[in-house]
């Protein structure tokens, strides 16, 4: 018997909570689909479900302490059927937003240099809007709370990516 004592970490940390939930959901998803997993549509469907599961488990790990988690949970609950349409439309929207953002960036670099002495609210106008699009639930927040939420959201996203990467690496040698 190997007595492997790995270094102990916080069992109730965000990472452990997310990992536990996510793995449970993943096993559920995989248990539900024993057939025809090779077709691309099936894979795509499963990808959607896994992504939703990842987001949901992340939001659940944070509970309702953060605005973005509440917004994400609400989104996931109220739009279960329109997932596909929502996904494609969001992809299109994000692409358009990216293009417009690149266009705006050129303008912004000129405008921000002149308005740096002014109010911060004015300078962050465009970028704050983009950030609001990215962070769930960011539409109704002022700049300060938006930055706060963004910081926490980035932290949670990084843990999510790490855990999922570990899982994916484990299962695809």
């Amino acid at each position: 018997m190997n007595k492997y004592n790995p270094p102990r970490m916080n069992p109730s940390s965000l990472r452990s909570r997310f990992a536990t939930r996510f793995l449970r959901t993943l096993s559920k998803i995989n248990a539900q689909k024993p057939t025809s997993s090779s077709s691309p549509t099936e894979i795509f469907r499963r990808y959607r479900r896994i992504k939703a599961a990842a987001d949901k488990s992340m939001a659940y790990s944070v509970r309702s302490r953060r605005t973005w988690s509440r917004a994400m949970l609400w989104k996931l609950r109220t739009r279960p059927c329109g997932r596909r349409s929502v996904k494609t439309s969001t992809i299109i929207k994000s692409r358009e937003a990216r293009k417009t953002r690149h266009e705006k960036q050129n303008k912004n670099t000129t405008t921000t240099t002149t308005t740096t002495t002014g109010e911060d609210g004015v300078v962050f106008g465009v970028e704050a809007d983009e950030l609001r699009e990215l962070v769930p639930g960011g539409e109704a927040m002022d700049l300060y709370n938006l930055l706060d939420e963004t910081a926490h959201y980035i932290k949670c996203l990084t843990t999510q990516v790490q855990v999922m990467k570990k899982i994916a690496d484990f299962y695809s040698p």
Partner: protein
Amino acid sequence: MESNAGTKETRSNLTASDGGEVTAFESLQFTDEIHRLILAPTTDNSSSFTALLELPPPQAVELLHSPDSPKLIAASPPNVEDFQGSFRFPSNSGLIERDARFSLFSGEANNSNEKRNSPESKNVSANPEKNVKSEPAETESSQPLVSDPTVEKRSIKRKDRENKVKGSTKKSKTVANENSEDAEKLPYVHVRARRGQATDSHSLAERARREKINARMKLLQELVPGCNKISGTALVLDEIINHVQSLQRQVEFLSMRLAAVNPRIDFNLDSVFTSESGSLMDSNFPSLVMPAIWPEVQGNGHRQQYQHQWHLDTLQQPVWGREEVCNNYITPENSLLTYDSSANSATLQANHLKMEL
């Protein structure tokens, strides 16, 4: 008792010289006396202390500028309980000297009585406490201490005070500027305005808000790798936006990978956990999840061999899908592969602490 006697002495001394010439030099003498008095009773008798403290500045002021001694004394009701700052008495004398030199104080002394309850009044008293703690050596920062007993009485939002401390301590450049500002503050000045800045409540509130936002931006800069070198808030925000988008894309790709890679494999959570625990440094997974999945594991143990074969077969078919994905989004994949989890976990822990603070 000694302190009370000391105060009486000061009063007698000061009133004796009241009739005499009131010049800056005499104020120096007074400050020396005050210095001595303040240094002597360094006890915890706060009431006498503050009485001591309160007396010198108004007395000094009064002697310097206007013979309205009763007015000033009455005007500064000793709210002794509020005064809890650390006492830097030697510097007080220096402060009084400087204030004696700058005659702005006299005007303020009269105006401040009217201004006391104005909404624009900002309490600077918290500043010296924090200043003293952070920059004890600087006499400039400890100057406002003298204003403590009188200014403490006004209660203003602490955040504004702190913000003004930081803003003013960072941006006060010349001693003259500092002195002119302090002279205005002492003892009834409320607003710590930087030189050349407006002192409306609006602009001050906005400045406080801006400083809060800048603090948040710094925190975000630390979170997002590669943002420390960028100067300029708009560019930093762009970087943050890029980072958030890349993270979201990474989540999508990883979920796609998981969907493609694991069509048939049952998730042997215990094996996943034991491998993860070493890398993730989370060892309590097995204890949490093992009891739930033991029956599954035993049932699936013999199936693992089949699963490996299936694993290979199923990998080939979705490869074309993955290739398409990979061609378009190579950089996120590379970032995935080169993602240094151990280093990031360490930084994440540090950030955890910061966030939870």
